[in-house]
């Protein structure tokens, strides 16, 4: 009797995992689907398999729009994650390391950007920019992403710091290291895995963001998720599968690196 229920549970769990990964697998598969020529244009199906081909990737490779969007998303992601890493790390460190009033208030302040619906954050920032006449573009997207990415890095680093052993720092100081040397040589290496994991998470969250970028963009700046979204709106095609696959590969690689770092430490 017990065995049967265990087997049922196992099958059920396998089905749920399949549900999580099958759509992604199908999306990737059909990015390699061969197209047909119709009315002088190459079109392709995302549901009927014709044969293996790399034509959609070749097409992407020649598409200047995709390259621009990819460059924009990368620039935004890199700057956002650097800003978030610095702000998130020093504040998490300060909160654990020093006595301060109003700590709880600060925790709440760093929690709210993660839990509040993103669209309300996005539209409020748009109003802020409009009200103060700030020119919309790359910079305004970066600021928009940083407000929630700082909170992500802060949360990840703080979780890592909660079991952080301060006696190592004290040992370095008592052995004659200056506070700055201690921070660089002792504290930072101890923090590094958490900071890296948080930074990678910040990058992927920025790189994959559609809503905040759409609300805070201007002067024709378009990011990769925005490009994919506008293409989906004008009809599905294996070409979208190919761009989507590229974004999956990029964020998947970063997820793997993050996992590898956390496993090593």
């Amino acid at each position: 009797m017990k065995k049967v229920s265990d087997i049922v549970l196992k099958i059920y769990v396998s089905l749920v995992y399949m549900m999580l990964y099958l759509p992604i697998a199908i999306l990737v598969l059909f990015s390699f689907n061969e197209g047909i020529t119709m009315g002088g244009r190459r079109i392709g199906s995302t549901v009927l398999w014709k044969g293996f081909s790399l034509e959609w990737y070749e097409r992407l490779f020649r598409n200047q729009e995709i390259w621009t969007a990819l460059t924009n998303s990368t620039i935004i992601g890199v700057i956002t994650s650097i800003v978030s890493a610095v702000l998130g790390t020093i504040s998490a460190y300060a909160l654990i390391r020093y006595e301060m009033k109003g700590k709880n208030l600060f925790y709440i302040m760093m929690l709210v950007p993660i839990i509040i619906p993103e669209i309300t954050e996005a539209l409020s920032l748009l109003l802020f920019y409009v009200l103060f006449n700030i020119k919309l573009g790359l910079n305004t997207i970066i600021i928009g992403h940083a407000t929630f990415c700082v909170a992500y890095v802060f949360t990840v680093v703080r979780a890592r710091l909660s079991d952080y052993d301060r006696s190592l720092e004290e040992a370095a100081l008592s052995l004659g290291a200056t506070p700055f040397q201690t921070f660089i040589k002792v504290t930072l290496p101890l923090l590094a895995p958490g900071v890296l994991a948080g930074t990678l998470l910040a990058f992927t969250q920025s790189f994959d963001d559609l809503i905040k970028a759409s609300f805070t963009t201007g002067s024709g700046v378009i990011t990769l998720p925005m490009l994919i979204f506008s293409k989906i709106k004008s009809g599905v095609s294996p070409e979208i599968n190919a761009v989507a696959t590229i974004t999956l590969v990029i964020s998947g690689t970063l997820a793997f690196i993050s996992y590898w770092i956390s496993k090593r430490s």
Partner: protein
Amino acid sequence: MSNDFWSKLNLRRLKGYFLIVPTFLFELIFFIVPLIIVFVYSFSKVDSFGRITFEFTLQNYFNVLTPEFSRTILRTLGIAALSTLACLIIGYPVAYYIGFKAKSRQNILVMLIIIPFWLSFVARTYSIISIFSTNGILNQILTFLGFVGDKPQWLYTWYSVVFGMVYNYLPMMVLPIYASVEKLNPQYLEAAQSLGASPINAFFKVTLPLTLPGVFAGSILVFIPSVGEFLIPELLGGIEWYMIGNHLWIIFLTMGNYPLGSALSIVLILLVILITLLYIKYFAKEVELSF
């Protein structure tokens, strides 16, 4: 001695504040102040030319409470609640399995739950379209299995929206429940069973109450993003299943009626806060009672 001590302490404090001030100011200026601006805008006037004047009016809130918007608000709450429930029903056994039955493969199973969270949200939501479209994979499977007649319409229904939510937010439900299942001492269960409780009885009297904190955290983590969701109803629901997020998008980016959009988004924020508080109050009681 004591003088030295105090100056040292103050210096340490100052150092802490000094390190925290940049982050504090950043979030204050670009996160808190904009929210206050939304609040102010929601009470402002817009004339027929689209010009905004800051004169106090409640008109935007009255406009939000018209039948059309009220229906959207109710629809949003319904879909979010249904999605949360679906995530709970589908996710609980998974968390239970990972925490209890799969000791040796726990790490890899948890990692497989986390990975989708790292992958592009747009790509994941897009991937559902090929499954649900009229000639999509699901209908192909149904035809293959021998179902004939009209192909069922899966896309642009409430269940495709709920499926999209479950597909994207399931990790948010599984992880906290898994965390509380893992903390559970299996000896409690053994004790219950050796005292004569059936496995089903033991589950409802021991396992479920002890994992309620995880259920509670998971439900909040799924409900909040679902209420504010834009992309899933946009791609899988269509205009008929538009939620508050879709209307905010149109009001802000197409119509440019900032006062009306601000009022609607204040309503959204209040709903999220109110329902979370009610949920905490109700569930906090439940959790207390169960111990």
